[in-house]
């Protein structure tokens, strides 16, 4: 009985531990390693789009710095 309880406690502790930290375990990060799962997989494309929006709209920044480094606004 005691052994059963100890086993139960161990399983409960393992479950609790796996649930206490948000996010996948290291061996579950296969999908995160792919390019399309990066925060900014195409930085030049993002920069070009932000440049267009910066020069045509009043808002800028959010993703990064609000400055444009140019006189286009």
């Amino acid at each position, binding site marked *: 009985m005691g052994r059963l309880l100890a086993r139960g406690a161990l399983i409960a502790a393992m479950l609790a531990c796996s649930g206490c930290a948000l996010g996948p*375990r290291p061996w579950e990060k296969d*999908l995160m390693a792919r390019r399309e799962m990066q925060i900014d997989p195409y930085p030049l494309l993002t920069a070009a789009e932000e440049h267009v929006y910066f020069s045509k709209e009043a808002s800028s920044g*959010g993703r990064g710095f609000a400055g444009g480094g140019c006189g286009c606004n």
Partner: protein
Amino acid sequence: MQLNVLEAGRVRKRLSRISAGLLAATLGAHAASAQEYYDQEDPLGTRNDTFGPGVAYSQVDAALLVYQEGSGRVTAIEPTMNLAVHAADGRQLTLGLVADAVSGATPNGAVPSSQPQNFVTPLKAQGSTASVTGASGGSTIIHLPPTPGQIAAAALGRQYTVPANTLPMDKGFRDHRGAATIGWSQPLGNISDIGIGMGYSREEDYQAITANTHISQNFNANNTTVTLTLNGEFDSSSPFGGIPTPLTAMSAQWKTPTQRSKTQLGFVLGLTQVMTRRWLMQFNYSFDRQSGYQNDPYRVISLVDPATGDPTDSYYENRPINRQSQSLYWDNRLDLGPAVTDLGLRYYTDSWGITSKTAELSERIGLGGSFYIEPSARWYQQTAADFFHYYLVAGQTLPQYASSDIRLGAFTATTFGAQFGFRLDGRQEIYIKGEYYSQTGNGHPADAIGQLRQQNLFSGVKSAIVFMGYTWDFH
């Protein structure tokens, strides 16, 4: 039999997932063995995890942006290139180069009229060798008498005529820009990553120097990253023809001073969280403060007759010297099996009275083999700045600040696009993205006067954007 083949396929997929996961988990601790793994031959070229933490490699990104506005307005061509060198211990050096050539017609800020309108701008000082930026597009050269209080040598001006019932645009707009950036980052002791960067951008009439530094820390088995970035920018504007006195009549005289500057300081506090195996989230708070010359030195605002609405004069605009802005940005990347969804939301507000909301959605779909397609949509809406006016009424007291720049007005913008990409092998990718951007706003405000009721006062743009890119990872 069929079932067995399917089952075998599933097992194989699961095994490859587990092995890729194990590999990622062990890379940090066993850089040398990872290097050995990466050095192995990959004759089929199917492996796409050839580069990553613990391995020294470099990345080259090259791209070309072609931007074209409708109605013969602005055209821009912008080649860019980035080089990133990653050392096995996490140190990273990045170098970036950007050039752009912009030309075309741009609204000068005045309202359309039922009568043709003439506008004058400086051309060049007598006896000087200053080049003329684009005195083309139906302009004529005019001779000016010396004016008391102005530079005595100023004697030539450029005049252009806008036909009746047409949005006034200056067709002489032309500029070139070159910019370079450099950045360095590395782990330092217990700090996951710390870095600095600098940038320099130069146009014919504008110069910007930028500097930034960041520090980031990983927690929770690298599932949580907190990053603080500080940014600074110092700009100086040297417009062709000098700095006009705000809210005075447009003239062809050269003005003084010839240069004004602006400084900007800001920070971004970001949280990146891997929520599940299939969900990555980022949350940013940004604060910025700009101080200095923020006017568009070429832009005017019409003074109109209080009864007929006919423009009687064009005054140079004026904007407040200070501007503070804040934004919240929330981005989500979700791997939903056959497709990867990216959903980004932003809320922005500033001390000029502008608030904006942005929503972006894209869906990356594998097309089999090495091809993919990624349709995308963006919706953006902003309110007007407190000092935005389509025009000012002659005879009334002038406000302290006034601009008719539609970028400071209320409008909604949508972008629809699609990216199509092809992975040449695990190390190279080419892609092309086409987008259509369209601004819509109220061109017929309820309080329009006289002839202005018949005019479309909204001068927003519609543009087509094509972006081509190539990325290459190599040892």
